[in-house]
């Protein structure tokens, strides 16, 4: 570790790169995967004739898992944006000179806390 305290430009550049990976690579592929995981509407119509989607109960459980999985990765998407935003906000709010005196753990924790809804 060098004596760098805060390189604001680099911090923002990292945020831009992370957001670029998220938007240009991660999200398009995740969208395709989500469409492939979603049950086919045609199958939904007659799936109860089979065992897996009938008395077996596996199909219903898998549909539930798919829904949770899509929700889970949506949350991951939100978390990645959250970290990106925090890095960009820190690069805006602090400079190399005041990073020691003004940034504290509680201060940065507030960056991850949503404001109270009015």
């Amino acid at each position, binding site marked *: 570790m060098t*004596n*760098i*305290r*805060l390189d*604001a*430009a680099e*911090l*923002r*550049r*990292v945020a*831009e790169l*992370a*957001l*670029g*990976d998220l*938007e*240009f*690579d*991660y999200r398009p592929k995740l969208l*395709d*995967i989500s469409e*492939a*995981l979603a049950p086919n509407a045609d199958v939904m119509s007659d*799936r109860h*004739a*089979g*065992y*897996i*989607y009938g*008395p*077996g109960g*596996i199909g219903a*459980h*898998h549909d*539930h*898992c*798919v829904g949770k*999985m899509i929700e*889970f*990765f949506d*949350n991951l998407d*939100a*978390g990645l*944006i*959250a*970290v*990106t*935003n*925090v890095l960009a*906000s820190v*690069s*805006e709010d602090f400079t190399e000179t005041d*990073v020691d005196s003004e940034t*504290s*753990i509680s*201060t*940065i924790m507030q*960056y*991850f*806390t949503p404001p109270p809804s009015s």
Partner: protein
Amino acid sequence: MAEQWFEGNGLDELAAIIDADYAQVPIWRSQAAAYRKLTELAELHHSKITGHLQRAMDHWSSRATSVVRYESSGIAESFQRGMLTASGNARALDAIADAIEAAKTDLDEIRAEWAAMKAAYEKDPHVFDNYAIDGVTGFQAAKASYDQAARDRMHTMSVETTQAWHTDMHEPGPYTGPTYGNVPRVPVTPSDGSGSGGGRDITYPFTYTPPPPTPPPPAAAGADPPLLTPTPRPPDGPQLEFPTPGPGPGVITGPGPVPTPSPVGPAPLSPMHGTPPPNPGLFGGMRPSATPGLPVQRPGGMSPAPAGGPRTSPSVLGQRPTQAGLTRPAAASAANDRGVIRNPRQAATNNAGGGQRGRAQDEDRYSPAHRDGPETDELFEGLALDAGPDVVRPEPPTKVRRRDAGPALRRVPRKS
């Protein structure tokens, strides 16, 4: 429960069930492939975001970064769990599809066999006369046995699919990373990774502009581009050079030109390997190859020590010098005469200070600069005594009786 549901169905009903399941196998296979893609995507993006965060932490040293590290660990843990869940669900769907396909194959065989039996029964109504099961006989007994075989096969299928479900098919669990981040005043523009960032740089007076990429040289028509561009070599070929040896340990230099590498020896490296990079931190710098000193070494092996040229001590080359290659002690100067066996009397006369000579040479001999190998005395042992006229032998003891002293010796003092 499922097995009880099978009890009320015969072969035809179970065949219809397995057909309905089998129709969905391509979708399960597609979903399993999607899960595998999701696993790879999560692993890849987890690696990328980890690299980005590490880069950010390299440029932000503060106790407050522990908060970002903690929140990032939640993202990493969620990524890990998502990967495990997706890969597990892929395995489960593949196992279910395999079980359905196998059950479909077996039920098709049972159904075909029963159709053949029915056809035989239509031709000969007495075919099933000897059949009896559970109190029924004839055709009904035969049909009941095929229905039971179909139920048993469906039961096996249900066990396999249920086991795959309970073993590998799971929900990903709750997400444990951050869900909110303070929105910056200037929206972050996503970068495509070209190097100049995504948008306008508002926090630093300098914006890095990458140099224009150098186009590769045009390749010959039909030739594949080289995987590794060779490093340009000097005209004389690759030479690993050593720094100028100082008065260091274990190096005995002598007159003579710098030897050229022998044509016999390891072949030079191919141009693909290029010139080995210098390591000034290790040797303290490079020197021209014409400087006298250690023999020029070629990469890929050590050069053999040529006769008459400079040589190194055995500790360097790992071999003892031959007798022909030894430098005779007399050729050494007075300052380099350590180790020569001398007549003590001559040594006393040649060196000013008499007794100080031995002390000074002892200090020279035992100094750390000469501790890297055998002492020169050991190297010249047995050679220097018979070598040449410069080696001064100790004179034999003078016990010659003087005849002219005889009478005097025989003179007996007169007693007074």
